[in-house]
């Protein structure tokens, strides 16, 4: 069954992104919210974690942190809160990697 993996912490402060990525299986989606969005900055040491994964990022949290869409690694989708709700519906369950 497909799963939505939610990460809300900076990958430079916590191990939650690594935990999420380490437990993703085919068909799963990674959603970065709150301080988790820093993982999606191009050129950051943590960006490699996203390779080969289906990744969405919450746009409101990007904007709050001054991260322009041009700064993001290629291939990530920017979603709004409605898109967050849609992702929860489109997957069979969610895991918040707190």
């Amino acid at each position, binding site marked *: 069954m497909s799963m939505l993996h939610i990460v809300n912490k900076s990958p430079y402060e916590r191990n939650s992104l690594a935990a999420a990525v380490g437990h993703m*299986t085919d068909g799963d989606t990674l959603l970065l919210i709150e301080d988790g969005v820093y993982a999606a900055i191009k050129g950051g040491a943590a960006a490699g974690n996203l390779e080969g994964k289906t990744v969405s990022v919450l746009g409101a949290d990007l904007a709050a942190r001054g991260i322009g869409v041009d700064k993001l690694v290629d291939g990530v989708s920017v979603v709004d809160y409605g898109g967050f709700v849609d992702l929860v519906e489109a997957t069979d369950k969610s895991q918040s990697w707190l």
Partner: protein
Amino acid sequence: MSDIKKFMYVNRRAPYGTIYAWESLEVVLIGAAFEQDVSLAFIDDGVYQLTKGQDTSGIDMKNFSPTYSALGDYEVNKIYVEKESLEERGLTLDDLQHLVWEDEDDDWAEKDSIRLVSRAEMADVLAEQDILFNF
């Protein structure tokens, strides 16, 4: 969806430094009365919750570690522990409590509750669940 759901409680926090481990265990105990198909996962620092020999007298906090050994009596007997998490922390199964349950369908034979699984196997176990509780 069937009447019985596959419930999994995902534990990734060390005990005592924060209350999440203890309040998660309180949910598991209450939840046991609801007759769902319950599993527990111990990943990352969550494996520290199960260590033997915890003595909290010096920090004046309640030692809740004996509660884990009572889980078998609540028919909570699928306890998945991630191998890589133990290894990274310099721990082995010998550092953890020996958790058991009695199998009613097998003449009350005492069986191990802990299932040591790799990270990849843990991912598959998570994938099989209907609902995941995160603390």
